[in-house]
């Protein structure tokens, strides 16, 4: 699992050397941002159901749709938000890459689903993040950059 620390250690191990001062500085640098990331992860975990419902409602609008379809959409959005929560904790895009994005295109295409709907949902979530009501500016920046990463992968 790729994270700030494991990336550094993988490189050090490939060269079979001990962690150097620059390795340690790199770890320290990523940990300096950790409190903002953890704040975002905590707030997201607390409001994940509300955020999901909100996004699904925004995508479907007022029209009448089958509830089962809406539920499946909500399930997927919840899944991606959970992976973003994990990415916020590890400080890298490892969880999204390994569990969310790898193979995603193929699965979505084979089910004839429109990725545009997901893009719209995550764009809606990104634009709705309110500073400082929801989280601090640094935490919001970390959260939004991961949402952008996911939107780019879906687009």
């Amino acid at each position, binding site marked *: *699992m*790729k*994270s*700030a*620390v*494991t990336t550094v*250690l*993988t490189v*050090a*191990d490939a060269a*079979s*050397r*001990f*962690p*150097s*001062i620059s390795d*340690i500085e790199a*770890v*320290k640098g990523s*940990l300096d941002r*950790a*409190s903002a990331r*953890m704040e975002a*992860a*905590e707030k*997201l*975990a*607390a409001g*994940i159901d509300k955020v999901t419902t909100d996004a699904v409602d925004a995508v479907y609008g007022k029209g009448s749709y089958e509830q089962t379809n809406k539920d499946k959409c909500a399930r997927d959005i919840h899944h991606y*938000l*959970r992976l973003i*929560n*994990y990415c916020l*904790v*590890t*400080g890298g895009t*490892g*969880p999204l890459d390994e*569990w969310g994005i790898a193979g995603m295109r193929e699965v979505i295409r084979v089910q004839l689903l429109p990725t545009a709907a997901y893009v719209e949902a995550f764009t809606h979530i990104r634009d709705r993040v309110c500073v400082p009501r929801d989280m601090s500016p640094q935490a919001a920046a970390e959260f939004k950059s991961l949402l952008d990463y996911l939107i780019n992968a879906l687009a």
Partner: protein
Amino acid sequence: MLDAFSRAVVSADAKGAPIGTEDLANLRKYVADANKRIDATLAITQNVSCIAADAVAGMVCENTGMTQPGGNCYPTRRMAACLRDGEIILRYVSYALLAGDSSVLDDRCLNGLKETYQALGVPLSNAIRAVEIMKIATVAIMTETNTGRKMFEGINSGSGAQCKEIAAEAASYFDRVITALS
């Protein structure tokens, strides 16, 4: 390879739940103690050859037959292999300590180590003794309870007494090595 953060992610994923306040408490502690952890890692990296050489020398002193013809550390080529292995184990312990998780040590160093040593005819009891001495020396250097001068320069000017908890964690990684070889 996992660290404290990705370990939390893997166990949360098994439950299918996001990581909430409870799980974050441990990780916040990791972040709060990061400076001590870095100093403790430096205590190892700055004294690698000293720790490994002392451990192997200690092991040989307790079993002087090892450097005699027919012993496992005779000729010097085999003694050198022994020193090299001591440094490799220390290296993986330092990775595990920095990561705050033992998976790198387990996967890349300990998995199959006992079988390898058995196949090569390395006496396990002596290897275990060398690891024990490395553990004692490392903890003493980290906590500044060694006799003589202070043996490492931390970048955070932390004193060794503050590294006690982290030193206990380092000792637990050495214990994993000993368990793997037993």
